[in-house]
């Protein structure tokens, strides 16, 4: 047969098959896979872009270079050649003066075009709410935080002095996008124009200043610029991106990304199971066609090509139709949740269409190739002997092909070879153990059947009789339930974890520098205003000078010489109990008093690693005007994104007594009670107040969006799960129809057949539930401890719930799809078979 004839014949047969409805299951399964892939692809791509945009707002640009010195002109020549827009900010500490009042402030001088990402919020009237501001302060004027007003006892439109220059306070600054989550920025903010810096004369050679160059441009230009920058970077010159700046946001983004990838992968794999099942059914119903064509003289390759063309067309149709539906679905979802999304929600790109076409072909051919190859091998002798089945491919070949394909799919989603390998190994172990468990349960069922009530016997016998087929079906249901349970459980835990990260009433204000003598009245003030503070931590400011007797600068590597922990005073505290978000990584927390040696300290793990500090090392601190030698007895991990006071170094109780101390605390204050702050600052002028409400709000919004995306992804996994269930049930339907018709011919009534179906399906579902629970717990253990960094604990309720859900869902689905067994007349069924 020449290729034109083959193509024509293939198309004709396909059209006839389509008309007869025999391609429906395969097309629907593939459609579900493509729709979940494309909807998730389109939506997460857009959401990812939107979240990234939001995160870059927090950073102030798509890319930020941080440097202690001004950059040389070649940096800007390059950025201009790439069409990048850039803005410049300079931060430094200086004293602001108003009349007799002085205040150490953190000045941020900004170029005229600042902000280039996000916006500021300011107000020209303290009594009025703030407004979005997208410009920099004009020359000669400054914008200040409220606490500058209270500390200097001035108002808007008053004048303050910075260095040699005088400025008018034209607005109060309530939010700046690129302030980030750096809580050590204690001094209140004053924002001015960079052009005013020379007139102040405050920046002199050797002054500690922090230049930030903010760049905005297309993804491609930014990437090119980043590549150009890479060899120029030094420990002093840093490039910041969203992942290095805001840990709270970036952790959530990373977890959401991992989750969405994992969930869409599961949806695809589940749909693939459905496709493999329907492909097998497709092949089986085409053995006769293949045999007949061979009998008429068609070559093996002709037959193979005929079916390959058909599958290619199905794959292409599913890809195009699925992507179109996927696009519409995500548009619908975007519309429904429009209030939660940012104003400019970026449009989806075409990349999802290409990946959907690729995925459609890979999944359809990959999972149907073993059966397609069998079609090629059908003997023409089958026309004479109907029972003659084609030789199966070698098990080793099928398994190798399937494993390779699953590995390709997992890798394309995770881009992580180690994770792919562990998923494959873990999946195989679960599959194998599951299959053995099912076999064991079946033989158990077989031996107890004679002792069971008459009503249950036929159903159980049906189940055990179709042993191999039922074992695979049960395993497929088990894996489906497992995937659904996994995605649901991880979603719940992730969302809970996010919510617990920023629970209601998370402190939105930090207060530092509370004088010990003010402690009592300060607490009283808060009580009077119904404010509940968190613990009051004593804080001594001190510098780490020696590690094991060597001066720190010599003790650490060259790169760490500029570590901020070494170059500024640290907040040192003492505590008898460890904070709840902290966890001991090495050593022990002090439970008992130990007066024999030098005072004990606990150090934060990342700092310890960077400065190469180990357990039992001796550290020397310079606090006030004295030195203190201490021994490291524990190393802690700290959750810096918990929005509670946290410390790099904690001393054992009483070891800091005698050194100058202030206190630090945090509390939650509703926005409407904000006026209380003015009174607080007036009554306790020495304190430093830090508002983090704006950052909290931004993070909360991001988390809400992430949660939404997670829920959407979940619904697709559930849909794919249902498609597997239907495909699996449909794959054994012709046999069930025949059996049902025979039973009815032999005199069984509908009630008996229905009862048998219920017993059979609910048992199968319950077994599947058991397998699902085993698999889900194993995977959750690995996912929680290795991917999401969450706590794992065994959940016995899950096992019971899965068994019940398995039994209920499979019997309902089975009952629904088995209605034909009861509806059609036995005569018609027997004739058609």
């Amino acid at each position: 047969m020449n290729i034109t004839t083959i193509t024509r014949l293939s198309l004709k047969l396909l059209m006839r098959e389509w008309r007869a409805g025999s391609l429906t299951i395969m097309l629907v399964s593939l459609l579900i896979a493509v729709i979940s892939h494309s909807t998730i692809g389109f939506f997460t791509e857009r959401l990812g872009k939107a979240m990234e945009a939001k995160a870059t707002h927090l950073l102030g640009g798509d890319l930020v270079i941080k440097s202690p010195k001004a950059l040389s002109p070649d940096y800007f020549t390059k950025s201009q050649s790439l069409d990048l827009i850039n803005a410049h900010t300079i931060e430094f500490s200086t004293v602001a003066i108003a009349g007799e009042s002085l205040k150490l402030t953190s000045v941020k001088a900004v170029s005229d075009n600042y902000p280039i990402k996000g916006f500021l919020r300011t107000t020209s009237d303290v009594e009025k709410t703030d407004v979005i501001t997208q410009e920099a302060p004009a020359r000669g004027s400054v914008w200040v935080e409220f606490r500058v007003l209270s500390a200097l006892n001035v108002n808007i439109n008053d004048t303050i002095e910075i260095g040699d220059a005088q400025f008018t306070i034209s607005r109060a600054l309530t939010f700046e996008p690129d302030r980030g989550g750096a809580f050590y920025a204690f001094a209140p903010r004053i924002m001015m124009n960079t052009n005013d810096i020379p007139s102040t004369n405050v920046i002199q050679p050797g002054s500690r200043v922090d230049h930030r160059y903010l760049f905005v441009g297309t993804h491609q230009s930014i990437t090119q610029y980043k590549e150009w920058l890479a060899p120029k970077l030094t420990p002093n010159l840093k490039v910041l991106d969203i992942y290095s700046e805001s840990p709270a946001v970036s952790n959530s983004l990373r977890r959401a990304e991992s989750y969405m990838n994992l969930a869409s992968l599961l949806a695809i794999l589940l749909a693939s199971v459905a496709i493999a099942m329907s492909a097998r059914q497709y092949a089986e119903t085409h053995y006769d066609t293949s045999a007949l064509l061979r009998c008429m003289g068609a070559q093996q390759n002709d037959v193979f090509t005929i079916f390959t063309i058909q599958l290619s067309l199905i794959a292409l149709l599913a890809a195009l139709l699925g992507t179109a539906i996927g696009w519409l679905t995500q548009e619908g979802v975007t519309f429904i949740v429009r209030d939660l999304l940012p104003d400019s929600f970026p449009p989806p790109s075409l990349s999802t269409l290409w990946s959907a076409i690729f995925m459609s072909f890979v999944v359809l051919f990959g999972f149907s190739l073993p059966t397609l190859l069998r079609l090629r091998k059908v003997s023409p002798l089958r026309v004479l002997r109907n029972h003659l089945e084609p030789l199966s491919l070698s098990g080793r070949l099928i398994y190798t092909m399937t494993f390779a394909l699953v590995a390709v799919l997992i890798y394309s989603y995770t881009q992580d070879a180690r994770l792919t390998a562990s998923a494959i190994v873990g999946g195989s172990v679960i599959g194998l153990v599951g299959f053995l468990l099912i076999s064991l349960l079946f033989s158990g069922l077989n031996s107890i059947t004679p002792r069971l009530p008459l009503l249950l016997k036929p159903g159980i016998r049906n189940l055990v009789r179709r042993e191999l087929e039922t074992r695979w079906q049960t395993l497929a249901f088990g894996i489906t339930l497992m995937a659904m349970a996994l995605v649901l459980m991880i979603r719940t835990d992730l969302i809970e974890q996010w919510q617990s990260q920023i629970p209601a009433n998370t402190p939105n204000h930090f207060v530092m520098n509370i004088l010990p003598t003010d402690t009592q009245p300060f607490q009283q003030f808060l009580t009077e205003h119904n404010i509940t503070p968190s613990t009051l931590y004593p804080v001594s400011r001190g510098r780490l000078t020696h590690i094991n007797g060597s001066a720190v600068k010599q003790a650490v590597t060259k790169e760490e010489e500029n570590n901020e922990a070494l170059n500024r005073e640290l907040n040192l505290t003492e505590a008898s109990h460890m904070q709840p978000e902290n966890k001991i990584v090495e050593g022990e927390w002090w439970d008992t008093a130990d007066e024999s040696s030098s005072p004990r300290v606990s150090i934060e793990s990342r700092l310890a690693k960077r400065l190469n500090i180990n357990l039992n090392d001796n550290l020397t601190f310079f606090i006030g005007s004295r030195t203190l030698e201490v021994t490291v007895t524990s190393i802690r991990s700290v959750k810096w994104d918990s929005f509670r006071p946290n410390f790099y170094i904690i001393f054992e109780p009483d070891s800091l007594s005698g050194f100058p101390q202030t206190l630090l605390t945090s509390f939650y204050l509703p926005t409407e009670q904000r006026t209380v702050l003015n009174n607080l600052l007036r009554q306790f002028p020495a304190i430093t107040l830090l508002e983090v409400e704006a950052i909290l709000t931004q993070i909360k919004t991001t988390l809400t969006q992430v949660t939404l995306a997670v829920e959407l992804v979940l619904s697709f996994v559930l849909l794919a799960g249902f498609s597997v269930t239907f495909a699996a049930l449909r794959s054994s339907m012709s046999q069930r129809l025949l059996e049902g018709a025979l039973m009815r011919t032999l005199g069984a009534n509908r009630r008996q057949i229905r009862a048998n179906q219920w017993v059979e399906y609910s048992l199968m579902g319950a077994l599947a539930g058991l397998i699902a629970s085993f698999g889900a717990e194993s995977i959750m253990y690995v996912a929680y401890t290795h991917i999401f960094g969450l706590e794992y604990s065994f959940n016995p309720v899950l096992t019971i719930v899965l068994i019940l859900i398995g039994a209920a869902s499979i019997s309902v689905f089975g009952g629904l799809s088995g209605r034909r067994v009861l509806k059609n007349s036995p005569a018609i069924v027997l004739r058609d078979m």
Partner: protein
Amino acid sequence: MTQFAITARSLAKSVTLDHQSLNILNAIDLDVKKGESLAIVGSSGSGKSTLLGLLAGLDDVSAGEITLMDSSLSGMSEDERAALRAKYVGFVFQSFQLLPNLTATENVVLPLEVLNRSNPEAQAISMLDRVGLSHRLTHYPRQLSGGEQQRVALARAFVAKPEILFADEPTGNLDTHTGDNIADLLFELNHELNTTLILVTHDQRLAKRCDRIVQIEAGTLL
């Protein structure tokens, strides 16, 4: 060119079941002349369908040699035998073997499409008209009676005008009256097109309508 459509020499077929060799056919010698009609009769399990399969090149022989239209089947691959079947052979089966998703016309068109013949629909319709089914052209097999289905199968078998027609119990699934009608049609078409007919049956009445009868028992021709 010989006068024989098929010759078989020392034909044997054995299969291995549970590590034991089972002989299905032994030392079969058979010549079928072109245009001749031959009936192979025998009881169930005698090996007559196996012999048909081997003669038609649907299966490999264990020993011996078959020549079909002057081509030796020995050493031919399955695909080479398929090419030979396409050129010379037609089939009629006891269970009709119509494709359920194709209409009567589409089923008859199929062998013409495999052969890449021009204008296959017209030829198919004309052949269906010849077997008396011009009113059933667009019907699916399940909408046809057993007799009608076998008529479609006959139309399909003869439409490509094969040199040799193999028929495996062509009336086996039909009642006597319908079976007789089908047999009439089969022999009519056979004469019209001068086809060599090799027919397997256990129906003595049908067998007697052939030019020659051979009987097979326990894998051996009597």
